[in-house]
């Protein structure tokens, strides 16, 4: 494992089928776009290390299938995620209207309540837009999420979305420090001192 990696973060990508979740991920991890990307079955998984504010974070990104019939399977993977990217298709209003369902699902299956959420309106390169940017903005504000519009095809906003999300997670100390601290203790008791130091201000909140 790399020495200089601050933390490993688990990120989820969820949203209705065909909104471009896998394409966003592919654009982010491989910087490519494939118009003929097969529909995801179950969950898929990609890893990427990024650097935000000089902190290196390893992202384990879980891409999920959007089909309703897969939903009984995918929420099991929500466990332990620190960040979630909720995607809708700006050219398909129905994908926007279903967002509430997805948030409910998150609420039910997420094991932590302080998970950082980001709303992404995808496919802004297309001409037949059906959801106004302001609507997305309003929805995000209502549910205290980060918001960005993006296009996996033209690359707009994709990098930025992931970076913002990671930065926000890193700024929320309880979200990730406690985990690394926990891991440190599991290794051996000698690490305890290190773990104690790493938790810094968090412990004093006691």
């Amino acid at each position, binding site marked *: 494992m790399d020495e200089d990696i601050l933390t490993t973060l688990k990120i989820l990508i969820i949203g209705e089928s*065909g909104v471009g979740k896998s394409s966003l991920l592919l654009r982010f991890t491989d910087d490519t776009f494939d118009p003929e990307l097969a529909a*995801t*079955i*179950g*969950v898929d*998984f990609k890893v990427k290390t990024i650097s935000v504010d000089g902190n290196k974070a390893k992202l384990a990104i879980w891409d999920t299938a959007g089909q309703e019939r897969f939903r009984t399977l995918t929420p099991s993977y929500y466990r332990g995620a620190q960040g979630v990217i909720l995607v809708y298709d700006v050219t398909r209003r129905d994908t926007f209207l279903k967002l509430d369902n997805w948030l409910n699902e998150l609420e039910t299956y997420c*094991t932590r309540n302080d998970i950082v959420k980001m709303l992404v309106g995808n496919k802004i390169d297309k001409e037949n837009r059906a959801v106004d940017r302001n609507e997305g903005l309003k929805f995000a504000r209502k549910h205290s999420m980060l918001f960005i519009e993006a296009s996996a095809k033209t690359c707009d906003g994709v990098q930025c979305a992931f970076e913002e999300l990671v930065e926000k997670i890193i700024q929320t100390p309880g979200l990730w420090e*406690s985990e690394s601290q*926990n891991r440190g*203790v599991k290794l051996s008791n000698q690490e305890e001192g290190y773990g104690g130091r790493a938790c810094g201000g968090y412990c004093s909140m006691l």
Partner: protein
Amino acid sequence: MRATAQWLHKMAADSEPESEVFEITDFTTASEWERFISKVEEVLNDWKLIGVSSGKPLEKGVYTTGIWEEKSDEISFADFRFSITHHYLVQEASYKDGKEELVEDALPLSMQDLLCMDNDFPPRAHCLVRWYGLREFVVIAPAANNDAVLSESKCNLLLSSVSIALGNTGCQVPLFVQIHHKWRRMYVGECQGHGVRTDFEMVHLRKVPNQYTHLSGLLDIFKSKIGCPLTPLPPVSIAIRLTYVLQDWQQYFWPQQPPDIDALIGGEVGGLEFGKLPFGACEDPISELHLAATWPHLTEGIIVDNDVYSDLDPIQAPQWSVRIRKADNPQCLLGDFLTEFFKLCRRKESTDEILGRSTFEEDGKEVADITHALSKLTEPAPVPIHKLSVTNMVHSAKKKIRKHRGVDDSPLNIEVLNTIMLFLFPDAADKLTNGSEARPSTSRNNPPPESEEYNLYSQFKSAPSDSLTYKLALCLCMINFYHGGVKGVAHLWQEFVVEMRRRWEKNYLIPGLANGSPDLRCCLLHQKLQMLNCCIERKQARDEGKKTYTSDRSPSGSSCDTGKAVVRSGGDYQKETEKERGEVGKSWESWSDSEEEFFECLSDTEELKGNGQENGKKGTKEGSKESANLKPEGRLHPHGKLTLLHPGEPLYIPVTQEPAPMTEDLLEEQSEVLAKLGTSAEGAHLRARMQSACLLSDMESFKAANPGCCLEDFVRWYSPRDYIEEEVVDEEGNRVLKGELSARMKIPSNMWVEAWETAKPVPARRQRRLFDDTREAEKVLHYLAVQKPADLARHLLPCVIHAAVLKVKEEETLEDIASVKKIIKQIISHSSKVLRFPNPEDKKLEEIIAQIMSAEAIIARARSLKAKFGIEKCDQEEEKEDLERFVNCLLEQPEVSVIGAGRGPAGSIIHKLFVNAQRMTESSDEVATMTSLDEELKRSGSSDERRLNLGAVADFPPPAGRELILRITVPRPAPYSKPLPQRMYSVITKEDFRLAGAFSADTTFF
């Protein structure tokens, strides 16, 4: 180096340029003493204590409300180490800015403080603050605790060093030296200002010389010490505080005893008590009450206090303040329960080791016996099963234990075990034998679901407060404490596991668990039990299906109403992956077809008669024409809106296999396996394949339900957005809807197409089981069986903490204590951080338990005080509120002043408490005839009267502490000297007598 330091000090001290001095000073032969002095100076310099001290007069009570800080350093005299410490009251920065003109010859602040009367007798302060009223001082004391400066010459040497250092630096902060043994708290010191000096002196004796036990004697010594030439002397100002200690709360017996366990199990509703945690202190958490009667401003001559007469009657004192002494770590029930339970976590032994090694060797036989016995009972019969089943379980366990360790050594008494099993499995009591009827029962006293309190389990990762897991945790906690400790725990756990197996084998649902897949927000043990219930439910459904099969009926019973995708259990995945790594390119058959296991074995053979297996097998590659002729199977209901594209028949939603329930450990295993495949295209492909079992199963079900269907039909149901419909105008000019698969579904040989081609029309009930309930149940049962008591305690600790927090909350609402509310909030936020992760650190768990214990102790103290002050008995609403406020202050502040002193409502109660205590001690000492208490009280109005009544007992015991502060401003040493503050503090307690004098003298005009 030293020369420079000295040089700098001089510069700093005098701020006069000494550049004309070219003389070489030789420090090479400097003595240890000189070096010591220079080190002291250095430290004073570092701390910027040099020069004129400035500051505002102190506010009233600031010594209590303000913040005290200290700074320390170490210096040595030869090889003797001293610590030097600066104690100071933190003052607002503006005070130190010193915008007001610094008056050069103003008295040093400390000297002014000597006279300040606003901060006498601070409840919590350094002793030097209490004795001299200082806001700032420096102490030099031996660094090691058992070191002491004993000889007089050494003491003098130190004092001279201090004097020289102060003189050299111009520091105006008083500098003390601690002499003699530390416990004696003997200090001598000095403070220097411009032309003035204060000497701090001290006398400390074991026994009080007779002449100093009263005010007049102390005034004499004070005056003689001042030795002021003026006549007449201005009057001395006097502050007096007498402290009385109350230890015997005679009228009040602490009523709480540890609950009698035999009484608990005697009653029929014993279970109710098992679901509760005890609460409260077993001993009085308040040990003493200290009453301080204070006369803050007296002037010499106003009162008389000598060896024959005293005006100092505490009842008459203008100020009363009270403090309580809390018992250190009072024994409290809840705390004990928690601590003992937590200790379990560190046990190493396995259940077998505790109960006797060979228990499990014979287990098979034993279990067979039980099941045999039980099978008789569990046949549908109008016999309530509970008594029999429970006693039977108990008997079997008893038998086992008897074999290995003799009759009397059984860890759990049979009635206790009976009561617990009935409490845990109430369905045994109120249901007849048909176990499938058993449903989770909810107890009445729980917070309603959706409430914040109810949902605490998701924060603590425990279990809902009405669940079996939660109840089990409480029972184990109770057993651990009262019924044989770890042995009892091991015993109950063994019984519990046997009961779990019995339920699995007999198809009885486990009560007290929410339906459906394991709730990942709960602790793992709870998830495991839920998993077992899922398995039982499936098995029930299968057995049901065997008995009463109808072709329309869904194979998994009514619960399978909505079609759902399915995933296989984690174990399957692992196995499959290992297999697949070698043979990635293998055909679909490897995942989908397996002849040995079908979802519903029995009905399969029945079906063969009607439909014929060949059809099922042929259908695969023959295309839609032939399969269209098949009889549709496994339909759930018509889709309603959609029809098949080709035959135009209504599209039916098929019965599908239900999703496999997952516990978090399985899930973790599975995601690890999936993640291990890596991020390459191949890995992704393999990952998709591994997860396609459910897709394939659904496709097969779909094909069976809709003969003649095509992939487009399936996609329209399964992933509607992948079927794109467009309005186009055809050749004849008609507008028609034309639909096609989305581009991604049309990718050649993508997995959806591939799966579709492989899928055979097989209804769910004849498909291979995606979830092997038998195997999963066995896995769970094995998991349960191998848990050691320590594992169990770790699993259930969150539940116990959860219950403890609820208990503290419940008790707190009765008392309404702000500080406890705050602690509860802290506990919850702290716990939700600690408990959410696997294997929390012991230290953090201990902290949580300590917090709960402190909350319990505070509540117990509040109760004790409320009882003592008779708040419940108080009729007047207003008075009651005042008393409550007073009691709350007592709990939270170090010292509380009593409004109205001895005449206020709280004051009169305190008075009564003392009178009662006095009466009791007297009557136990001597058999004296006494006037009744009331009569006595009536007469208590006048102290003189009482005093005259020689036979009567005094209301108060002799004061445990007697403090006096004498102050005066007079010129010293000569009549024409500057008038300077003089002060003497004296304290008399049972153990010692101390005089602490600060005598100032004019060093210019003497």
